[in-house]
């Protein structure tokens, strides 16, 4: 059995080498380039997002001032329209449901397709 020192001395003499140093170096540099590109994209996205949000804030702020006359006009005219009652809403809903039902019925019985040539 070899002594501790002999094994250590033997191990010191062993030269481990990469299978393909050139390829290893190239691949590592490619990974670094990829990482850098990703970092650049992230930085650009962050800048764009912050600029966009600032612009949006400005636009929203300005739009309040710009839309003031329109808002005034709308609120004035809406106030003059008669308030819509619950009954009107219920009637409109009934009418639209009836219309939808009728159309569905006609589609099922192919009545619409028969109407089509006449429309032509």
């Amino acid at each position: 059995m070899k002594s501790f020192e002999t094994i250590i001395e033997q191990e010191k003499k062993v030269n481990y080498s990469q299978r393909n140093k050139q390829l290893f170096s190239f691949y590592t540099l490619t990974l670094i380039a990829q990482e850098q590109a990703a970092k650049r994209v992230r930085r650009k996205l962050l800048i764009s997002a912050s600029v966009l949000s600032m612009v949006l804030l400005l636009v929203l702020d300005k739009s309040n001032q710009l839309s003031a006359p329109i808002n005034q006009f709308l609120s004035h005219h809406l106030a003059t329209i008669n308030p819509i009652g619950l009954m009107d809403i219920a009637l409109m809903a009934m009418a639209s449901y009836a219309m939808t039902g009728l159309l569905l019925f006609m589609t099922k019985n192919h009545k619409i397709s028969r109407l089509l040539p006449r429309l032509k």
Partner: protein
Amino acid sequence: MESDQELVRRTLSGGNHHYGVLIQRYADYLFGLCMRLTTGNRDLSEDISQQSFLKSYRYLTSFDQKKSYKHWLTGITVNCFKDMLLKEQRYTSLELVEESAHSPDLDGNSEFFDLIKPLTEDEKILFTLKYIYEYQNNEIAELLDRKTGTVKSQISRAMEKLK
């Protein structure tokens, strides 16, 4: 031949190809260190050395150019090895299932690997740095961010195990 410090300085000023020279210069050294730490697992050693170079590049700005790049890189590699161990532990349960299907590609001086087998992973690091790479206790302490006294006692405990 350009010095490591010069190559680091040139890399930092925007020349990635200079880092390629550093990679080529230390590829075998790191690979050897990883082979010893992983007791001859070639694939894992290649992975760890690559991770070390990537990490070294990432933190190159924090490298103190008055110090040795080789020592700094060694510290990074040891940390990468430890990270890999943590990852391996996390996936141990999964690996156990597929253990029979996977056997690592082992290579190198099996006598040395047999010698350090009884040591813990941390002791393997200390032992390898001290006896194969002939680092001083204070240098190891600096690399591993420990006290010199702690390193000294850990190494003597490892030696006790091997006797």
